[in-house]
């Protein structure tokens, strides 16, 4: 019996923590290129351009959603946006890797008989 109670408590705490994580609140300080950022209106799933949403002016409070998306409310409706399309409050700046080099050229006598898997690369 005790073991069952302990299990139930453990499960409940995990669910609670998960819920807290899922509902983590963040603050959107900027929508990058709002003319070209699509918002998904929930629950009907219609896509709208961020610039077309009247009165939308960051900062806006949002909650993290699955698949790296953010949900926020505006005029009583819920919208979803890609995390990569917005800037958050206290966001860490992008660290540019200055050490690695781009393989712009290869040796003339290099040969290759396979292409990286799955993709729209090319058929050669």
């Amino acid at each position: 019996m005790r073991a069952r109670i302990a299990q139930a408590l453990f499960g409940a705490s995990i669910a609670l923590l998960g819920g807290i994580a899922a509902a983590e609140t963040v603050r959107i300080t900027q929508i990058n290129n709002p003319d070209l950022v699509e918002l998904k209106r929930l629950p009907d799933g219609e896509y709208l351009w961020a610039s077309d949403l009247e009165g939308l002016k960051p900062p806006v409070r949002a909650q993290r959603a699955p698949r790296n998306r953010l949900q926020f409310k505006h005029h009583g409706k819920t919208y979803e946006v890609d995390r990569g399309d917005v800037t958050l409050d206290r966001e860490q700046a992008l660290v540019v890797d200055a050490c690695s080099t781009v393989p712009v050229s290869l040796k003339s006598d290099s040969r290759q008989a396979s292409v990286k898997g799955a993709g729209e690369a090319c058929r050669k």
Partner: protein
Amino acid sequence: MPRTDFRPYRRIEALLQFIGLVFLGLWVIWADPFGLSTASEKALATDISRSRAYVSPVDPAPITVVSIDYPSIEALHEADAAYLEADDWPLSYRDHARILSRLVSAGDPDDAPVAVFYDIFFERPRAASGDMAALGRVLARISDPPGSGERRPAVYLAGGGVQMPLSAESFDLLGGRGSMLATAAWQDHGDYYPLWAPLRPDDDASPLPATGPSAALALYRHLCPAQGKDCGWLEDGGAMSLQWVMRDDPACSDRWTHLPGYVIKTVLRYAGAGDPPGAADPHCMPFHQVRLQDLFAMPAGGLRPPHLPKGAPYVVLVGAVMPSLNDYHDTPLYEKVAGVYLHAMAVENLNRMDSDFLREQNIRGVSSVLWVLIALFVCLRRHRARRRTAPASAGPAAPPEPTFRDIAGRRLRALGSRAGWVLLMIVLITLIYLFCYSVLDIALEGWLFMIGLVSLLLFSKDEPTDRPDP
């Protein structure tokens, strides 16, 4: 005593020799046996192109190349802002849409490029990459921005080509606008870069346009008028022989340190010793080179090539630069370079030379006539030389038997003479090629009958000798 030819069959012999030489030359020019003519032309063009790049470096071009490389994808995926959904290639369609949004949103309109070529081929919709229609909507929004008077760069996508056409599904999902496609694959042009090429096979019922401009032409059609140039010639078509050039920068093209070394190495290589000269550093290409991660880290307007004044037009090309994608092309100067740089160099050539770019021209007919004239000249000269020596053999008094020293001296002189002729012809051919390449803007094709010329010179003994032929 009248000068008579005591061996009349020599005329027939000379005629047969002439016919034989003509056929030999025509065979080399037209049939390209064993690829000899093509291979020698290519080798010569490579060396001339390299030398020219070192001797005549160019100014930086109004071109920016954005490389989508694996470290950038990784960095952008792991960034706090999670700029990219994908952590490896291929990217999702939303990732592509985000990259395009960044490219065309420069903040100040004067900082925006006039056109963008996105060298990614969306051959057919791929479920694992998300919804292609989302990318299509962003492309349509870029093409037709809200509000009036706003100028956005024209965006072109890689439209494939006759051997790998874009699927009808992709075309439809990406907006169904044929004007957004640039040909990025072609055939039957050898090493040339066509300005126009088919986008699909003739018998394909796909909604794709039958032909499209190449990526370079598509971009230059925007860059040229923005620079205030006369651009009427742009619709003429043709194919370019790309000049691979390097930036005028002491670190790249200091002719007093690089050129002598290059020449010495080339001569040694032709003599059979030493390796080919090393390739030039790809950073010496006359473009502003940017990595994808820089695009997300830089302030608005950072795509503008640093040498360009504000407001001056420029174009942007974006392509995946990863060896595992197998999109690398042989060049005379930089060894194999990623495909997007091939298009960028074609834009550079158009921008620098305009209608004077090196054209593909088949002048085999002219070559054939020239060859016939050369063969005729040599055969006549040889025939006359024999006629001059003939009376000596018919005279009553036979010449004294030559000593070994005389024979050796004559042979050495003859050998030296022939070697000199061969060298002279090689130099002459190179100069003719260089003249056509540099002055007439013609990249010769089907012309290099050097093999035939050398054969002719070895075959012909036109220097007079003291002894009759046996």
